[in-house]
């Protein structure tokens, strides 16, 4: 059972306090999008062995959604941050780089 810290209210809580919401930083495709773009948005998800950015909700707490950068392999949490951003903040990227030298987003 994971431990996560909600960046909105500051509470460090047990996983049962939170609700997982899948991959973070999705870019929405709406009406007018091609079938391929819409499929990619709605169905295609990263499934990395390692660093992953996820959406979580502090469901049994302040109710706010936030993002977590996590390792799917070791389960370590590099950082949690506001959901109101289109990309991970620099301090989270720095924390990842420190623990996973050479890591780049998308595995490139």
């Amino acid at each position: 059972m994971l431990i996560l810290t909600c960046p909105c209210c500051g509470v460090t809580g047990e996983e049962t306090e939170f609700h997982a919401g899948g991959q973070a930083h999705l870019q929405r495709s709406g009406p007018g999008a091609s079938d391929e773009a819409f499929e990619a948005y709605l169905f295609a998800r990263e499934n990395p062995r390692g660093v992953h950015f996820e959406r979580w909700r502090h469901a049994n707490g302040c109710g706010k959604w936030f993002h977590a950068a996590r390792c799917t392999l070791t389960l370590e949490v590099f950082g949690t941050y506001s959901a109101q951003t289109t990309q991970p903040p620099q301090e989270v990227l720095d924390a990842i780089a420190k623990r996973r030298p050479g890591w780049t987003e998308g595995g490139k």
Partner: protein
Amino acid sequence: MSTRLATGGRFLDRNQPRVFTFNGTDLSGFAGDTLASALLANGRSMVGRSFKYHRPRGIVASGAEEPNALVNLGQGAAFEPNQRATTTEIFAGLKAESQNHWPSLEFDIGALNNLVSRFLPAGFYYKTFIHPRAAWKHVFEPIIRHSAGLGRAPKERDADRYEHFYHFTDVLVIGGGVAGLQAARAAAADGGRVLLIEQSAQWGGRAPVDGGQIDGKDPEVWINDALEELEKAPNVTIRRRTMGSGVYDHGYVLGYERIADHTPGDTRPRHRLWRIRAARVITATGAIERPLSFAGNDIPGVMLASAMRDYVVNYAVSPGDRTVVVTNNDDAYRTAIALKNAGLDVPVILDARPQAEGDLPRAARDLGIRIETGRAIARVKGRKSVTGVAICAQAGEGAVLEEIACDAVAMSGGWSPVVHLWSHCGGKLIWDEAGAFFRPDPDRAPISHDGQPFVATAGAASGQMTLAETLKDADSAGKVASRALGLAAGRKGAPKASQPQEGPITPVWMMPQGAGPALRQKMWLDYQNDVKVSDVQLAAREGYESVEHTKRYTTLGMATDQGKLSNINGLAVLSGALQNDIPAVGTTTFRPPYTPISMGAIAGEARGDIFQPIRRTPIHDWHDDNGAEWEPVGQWRRPYTYRRAGESTHDAVMREVKNTRQHLGLLDASTLGKIIVKGPDAGRFLDMIYTNMMSTLKPGRCRYGLMCSENGFLIDDGVVARIDDDTFLCHTTTGGAERIHGHMEEWLQTEWWDWKVYTANITEQLAQIAVVGPNARKILEALGGMDVSADALPFMAWADGQIGGFDARIYRISFSGELSYEVAVPASQGRALWDRLIETGQEFGVMPYGTEALHIMRAEKGFIMIGDETDGTVIPQDLGLNWAISKKKDDYLGKRAQARSHMTDPDRWKLVGLETTDGSVLPDGAYARGSGTNENGQKTVIGRVTSTYYSPTLDKGIAMGLVLNGPDRMGEVINFPALDGSATPARIVSPVFYDPEGEKQNV
């Protein structure tokens, strides 16, 4: 035969005899006995039958690793199967019976399997599943069904009480042997909070039995001193009878405390599940001795050498008068010495190694014990008990050199560290050549949320097999944990310990090493599941190279003991058969719990009335007092119907529908979700959330709306009321409020966070009562205070005001097709309003109605119900709800998805009404059959029933369903086959059965 010795027994209190019952016979033991030691003391060495061949089985071990001695314990509401006799403390009145035999333990029909064992090889199940099919159905399945499973399932409700307990600590130490005690001392030295748990009733582990000196003291003295120190320390909590069951992510650990197993009926909870969160975990879980694989190693009387000396030293139990010891290491000599010191005979020690020159062999020789090196057991003689052993050369194929009469055999194949808890959360192992075991690799420990290792091992669990190294390792583990938490570590060094010097082990995976097929078929690896050396070798020959596959194919290690004794031996045999190194073959996965824990402990207090929270409306008690039959809807309880004396449930529902249609009905609608959406962008936001256009709704008006997921599927519906320019009130389905509120928040917080909108779930702030029927207006007028006329409050309008003195908001909406008002008041006024409506309504023929009447009335009107007409794969277009989908909007959630080719497929099943030709009620969920077959050769289906009721209004069965091209097939009759082969014909009709023009609701 085993018996009680006249003196000794560390754990026994001979002043406290305990009478217990085994298979109906009264036996006697002492306080401090386990069921296993007491059975042995009474000469009961045979305690059960094996799973597959029903072979007689005796006690093999003295602790949690015991594979054979499983019993049914207790009776009636306290009955529990598969309890290990070795970890069951006896108490006066304990009742146990052996398992897996019929008709009796001594004479068992299933033992016939033993005679046909060559027809039950590895993979037996898989092979018979495949062919021939008839044999499976008529021969194997009945046999397997009869013999499958150990023990019996309890029949009565568990009478005991269980609880959960939350605990937070800096360091958790699992295991109360000398390593655990020292690790706890070291970790606690600088004030860190330490929890130390031990699975058994005794502290100190093996050290007092195995001997040596710690800081110049007997281990027992040192243990008592350490305990005293820990008990006094304010930052240390210690618990016996508490097993570390599983280690989970980020330092979450389950502890399983058996509080009152040994004191039943003393009013305490039986078990307590500790839900522990520890910053650091130290597993000081010791090691488990391995059996040796020789023919007949499962005959009652063959026991692990360490278990045997536990029984002698701790319980004053003699395992037999003459015990042959067989070993590949020095440790087993301790058993020979203990037996000799207890006055028992050890005719010979068979040591598979070419020589035995350590301190312990020397001491054994000095006691006059015969030692034969390079020797092995060719086979054990006896059936229900050991009568002797045939001796051979370990290097040979089993030619018998000598036979020796004996009534017990002590075996030792070396030791394996208990790495389970280390491995649960990803700790990796390395193969230790010198010790011939897997041990934790400290460089690849489980990782916590902070990226730091959070599990460490101490003592024998690390692979440290001498007393001095164990204590040094444990001291270091405690200090490292303390330092990792930012505390200074104590400066005291590890205790000094001394012990006889031990010579090296020689791995022996089969005895003798050249044994032929006949012997290999009698060498047991997994006692409980009856897996033999020959089975694993067969699996390897049949191509099962992966250890995980071999495990499943042979069932090795899949019994309730999870292979604590068999895993390493089986793996070594497999690697031998594959001619591969043991580390290359690898281990199977270790999974929690370490030993089985009770279902009661997992459930804790969550049973009966407090299984889950129940949500009650402000009017709940009235319903309860007036015959409500409850229906769970999410966590809410809603009245299904209000049954009167002499009425059936069906009668009551019919009455409620008729009365509402003819006079006046009241429905407690408080459970409907109510979400306030407020802000300058609220209209824009709801235009995205709903398929309808909500931003054009005028204040004072209501609109029915549909919500879809981004995938286009209908997820909720309800009436939206615009309160003012910036404020909307959205009704959701009962039980849908939290989910929909979360859905709205997700979009607001993660996609449109710059939109100025707030949401609030106010479901429980308001009580809401639907006042329904031709007399609805009359009763509200009688209450007085608000103009509820058709002009002042037309259909789909709402108004605030005071009615009958209550602060009310009245919505003119209808889910029944009748003239209907929903009156919302603050929750605190809900019950008073309900009482007033019941009282005032008497002259208008008022009756409350429940959810079933509600369902029937909505179905008569063709109104859909989320969860009936929808199942997560239905889009609004399927339900003929195109009128509720705005064509003017560029976007809403689900719009793009609804344009996908599959969503616009004209062959999607669509909503229609269904009327049986004979007026009967269609079965719920029934499928309509088409003509022909599909590509799998199955008969095609062309539709299914989604809602079906008997309509008292129309006096016939009515239904709704999704049907292929349904709306184009009005009047056509389709068939709904039933399970009994009959079929019900039904005509496709409009789903609106009642008042299609809406004249009743719009008056």
